[in-house]
């Protein structure tokens, strides 16, 4: 099968990227040292090609009412144009179809950004649900939009430098909101635990913008560092930390599920009928080694499993997210089975690191 390419594929190769098959996309995993790239984002700034993610626009009179039913988080929290909300989209049984960000532009236009690997499935689900409830609504995805994330403490200043006119427009943009700039869409969002922007831009303009950012000294960052940055920031990865067999309450996402209001949404009845038995916790390895996904966790309350694990460049220790029995508490000692050995790990409250610093207690 031919791998799909983003508009920046040639630019990655010219910058010396090591390219890998990432869910059918030919993507840069690193451009040299993944650890250096990680620190670059925590301490200065870096740019990521996330054009494989998909932008989906919903337009029409009934959009808000539809999203109120489609998503587990409540879009009624979105009152100011440009404001964004993180949410899961659930099956009737409460399993997670995908996690996404929804932007409120106006009462007849909401924009959703979904994961690459799930995009086609997501859109089919959205259209199937819309056909039953708001057949007049238009759902259109935009594979022709590229997306570049610029992240780090100096990210906004670098974007302002690279993009004339953007400072005036985005200087007062509050976190988790977005604004249009011509054919571009600039959001103060990200997946690293650092400040910065995610910028949607027409594919044909993306290589020039990427090159301009590079000229301003913004270093390219691969998907390898993207994964360690998001793990340190305690952000879930779809397909690892949750999927269609896991409900959001057992994936650390209770804060994104609105069970308090009268509002009905897909999956709500299942969530109410099945109180969570497990929960997602952070682990820091006390012994030498590296925590990885699918390693088994032994606790005094029963077995658990690591969902995401790696070496944390900021903590210089191995860290993980693990799904364990709900009785497990922060501060507990647990054991992780790695190659027939049992290594000691401590349960911590995550995130592990954000804004350049360790934020969990070791």
């Amino acid at each position: 099968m031919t791998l799909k390419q983003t508009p920046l594929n040639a630019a990655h190769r010219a910058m010396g990227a090591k390219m890998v098959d990432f869910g059918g996309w030919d993507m840069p995993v690193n451009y040299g040292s993944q650890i250096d790239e990680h620190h670059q984002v925590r301490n200065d700034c870096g740019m990521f090609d996330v054009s494989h993610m998909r932008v989906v626009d919903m337009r029409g009179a009934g959009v808000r009412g539809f999203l109120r039913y489609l998503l587990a988080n409540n879009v009624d929290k979105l009152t100011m144009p440009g404001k964004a909300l993180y949410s899961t989209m659930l099956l009737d049984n409460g399993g997670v179809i995908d996690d996404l960000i929804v932007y409120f532009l106006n009462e007849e236009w909401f924009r959703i950004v979904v994961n690459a690997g799930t995009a086609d499935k997501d859109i089919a689900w959205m259209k199937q649900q819309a056909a039953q409830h708001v057949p007049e609504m238009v759902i259109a995805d935009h594979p022709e939009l590229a997306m570049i994330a610029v992240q780090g403490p100096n990210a906004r200043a670098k974007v302002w430098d690279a993009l004339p006119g953007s400072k005036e427009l985005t200087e007062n943009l509050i976190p988790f909101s977005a604004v249009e700039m011509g054919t571009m869409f600039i959001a103060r969002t990200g997946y690293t635990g650092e400040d910065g922007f995610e910028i949607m831009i027409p594919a044909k303009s993306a290589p020039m913008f990427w090159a301009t950012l590079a000229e301003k000294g913004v270093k390219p960052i691969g998907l390898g560092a993207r994964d360690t940055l998001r793990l340190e920031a305690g952000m879930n990865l779809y397909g690892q930390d949750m999927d269609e067999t896991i409900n959001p309450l057992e994936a650390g996402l209770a804060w994104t599920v609105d069970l308090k209001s009268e509002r009905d949404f897909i999956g709500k009845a299942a969530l109410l009928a099945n109180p969570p038995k497990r929960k997602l916790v952070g682990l820091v390895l006390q012994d030498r080694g590296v925590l990885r996904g699918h390693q088994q966790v032994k606790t005094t309350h029963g077995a658990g499993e690591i969902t995401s694990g790696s070496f944390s460049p900021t903590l210089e220790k191995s860290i993980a997210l693990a799904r364990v029995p709900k009785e497990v508490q922060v501060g507990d000692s647990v054991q992780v089975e790695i190659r027939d050995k049992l290594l000691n790990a401590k349960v911590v409250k995550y995130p592990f690191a954000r804004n350049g610093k360790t934020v969990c207690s070791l």
Partner: protein
Amino acid sequence: MSNPSNLKYTASHEWVKSEADGTISIGITEHAQELLGDMVFVEAPAVGRKLKAKEECTVVESVKAAADVYAPVNGVVTAVNSELDSTPEKINEEPYAAWIFKMKPDNAADVAALLDAKAYQAVVDSEAH
């Protein structure tokens, strides 16, 4: 970086250096470290452990993945490079200086029969296609 011609190699990407005292030093090749990326952990075998050729005896872990390192020949582990406990990145920086463990081979002829630099390069090239 080319593979030093004074070393022997395995198809599983270990390099082997014959030392003056009759032992051999074992590490992983430039190609192997490049594939794995930033090293963060090395679990070397215990000194005194008897190994058979092609036996898994060491785990090297990068940020990305864990990989096994295999004994190149039959023999006994005589030393491990404890410097790599705190600086596993040496494997990335100087793969042909960062030895992981040493062995006393049962049979010197087994070492002579390993791949030379040219034959190893052919293995690397064949994997690329």
